């Protein structure tokens, strides 16, 4: 392809990517603007509210210029819970995948715990960890844990048998085979698990911050709902969407660098 054709294809893709949100905004605007009472505020009001939330200078109320604090609180919990989940789930998944005894020991229990939704853990988390950030942290951990664990187990178990034979005939010993074959071969699955886990961490954060914490995007969304400040609710949602998207892009870029060899990722 020529440089021009590449650029044309890229701008076409960009155009299509913004087309749907623009249409959505338009529809939102048309149905909520104008006279009459609306349950949902129009996009312009939300934009003004978001600006005030982020930088202040419009309403100058209790919420003005607090977005950064809330976003940082949520980011800390999302990445903290996610990191802890990865720290536990990665080694556990590798052990379950590679060692039959560990699998027989843990797998049945995990299969029963897995279908329990994170929301169902909420009351128990509040009893054990109290009302506050520790409960939120725990729920985020739980949300990120299973996707990482399951994908790690899957990756470690589905290494092609041929690769073990190839390694053995080239002189790789029993101990080294994990580092030389199992780990690199399962990296794409592990990576998928981490990406899904981080996504779930963002999904769970709102629930997690319903446990009565003072700061966090989930916390202001819940609080604004009670005060019927729907603009703030939507501003919080938009912020979570954007932050979640950005963090996913970061992970994806990292994956493309590390997994250049994989036709699915490179």
């Amino acid at each position, binding site marked *: 392809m020529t440089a021009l054709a590449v650029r044309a294809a890229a701008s076409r893709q960009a155009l299509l990517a913004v087309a749907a949100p623009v249409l959505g905004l338009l529809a939102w605007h048309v149905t909520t603007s104008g006279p009459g009472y609306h349950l949902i505020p129009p996009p312009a009001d939300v934009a003004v509210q978001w600006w005030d939330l982020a930088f202040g200078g419009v309403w100058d109320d209790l919420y003005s210029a607090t977005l950064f604090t809330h976003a940082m609180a949520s980011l800390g919990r999302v990445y903290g819970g996610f990191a802890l989940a990865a720290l536990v789930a990665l080694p556990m998944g590798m052990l379950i995948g590679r060692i039959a005894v560990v699998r027989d020991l843990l797998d049945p229990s995990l299969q029963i715990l897995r279908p329990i939704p994170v929301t169902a853990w909420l009351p128990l988390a509040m009893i054990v960890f109290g009302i506050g950030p520790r409960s939120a942290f725990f729920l985020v951990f739980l949300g990120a844990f299973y996707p990482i664990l399951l994908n790690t187990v899957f990756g470690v178990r589905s290494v092609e048998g041929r690769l073990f034979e190839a390694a053995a005939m080239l*002189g790789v010993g029993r101990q080294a085979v994990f580092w030389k074959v199992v780990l690199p071969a399962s990296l794409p699955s592990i990576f998928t698990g981490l990406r899904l886990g981080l996504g779930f961490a963002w999904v769970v954060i709102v629930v997690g911050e319903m446990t009565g914490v003072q700061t966090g995007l989930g916390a202001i969304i819940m609080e604004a709902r009670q005060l019927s400040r729907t603009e703030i609710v939507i501003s919080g949602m938009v912020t979570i969407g954007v932050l979640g998207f950005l963090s996913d892009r970061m992970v994806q870029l990292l994956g493309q660098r590390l997994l250049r060899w994989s036709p699915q990722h490179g």
Partner: protein
Amino acid sequence: MGEVLERPATAGTVLPILDIRHVDKRFAFGAETITALSDATLRIDKGEFVCLIGPSGCGKSTLLRMVAGFETVSAGALLMWGKPVSGPGPDRGMVFQDYGLFPWLTVSQNIAFGPIARGRPKAEAAATARRFVEMVGLTRFADAYPHQLSGGMKQRVAIARVLANDAEVVLMDEPFGALDAMTRERLQEELLEIWARAKLSIIFVTHAIEEAIILADRVVVMSPGPGRIIADERIALPRPRDPTGVEFNALRRHLSGLLGSHH
């Protein structure tokens, strides 16, 4: 099982690199037992090029995998330089039909994998890899990943990987089966060149009688149900061999006759 077999090499007999003696292989298949190989006996000298031919299911891959050490023998003995084969090892390199390359390593890294696994210094392994990348004509693709290569190129990497690891015995299971006729011919020539230069001992499984006659010092013919060795023909034609020649065709007829009469 060893003591019966430690017959001392008498004066004048050269120790064969591979000595396969009355080997049986049985697989449990549900409640039944399948005899994949029955009483296989085969001696291969250092530097010999042996082709295995025979209909599907006659145990060619099984025999090769036992030599590689991926499968154990059910009866009999399988010796390399007089010592029983007890598992896979770098002295016996396998070239798989499906290549078995490590997808996360580049061409050079795949070739350097064996030397590094055996504890060679990084720089030495890299130099070895460069040499073999060049030998199989993939210099331009040294940094490509396997998914970016054609089948023929992957097969070259698989061969280079085994050679770079100082394998004395090279086991090849229908390595050129999936390639087009032209690529196959070129790789056959290259293989013969490398074989002669590196003094390799090769067991090469193929379905194609012509390929066997082009390559081999000896063609070993097998038949199924249970898998047995039914003939061991020496090919005395000088190389390079002309598939249109009279003697070549006589051999081809003879070998097809052997294969046909045992169906």
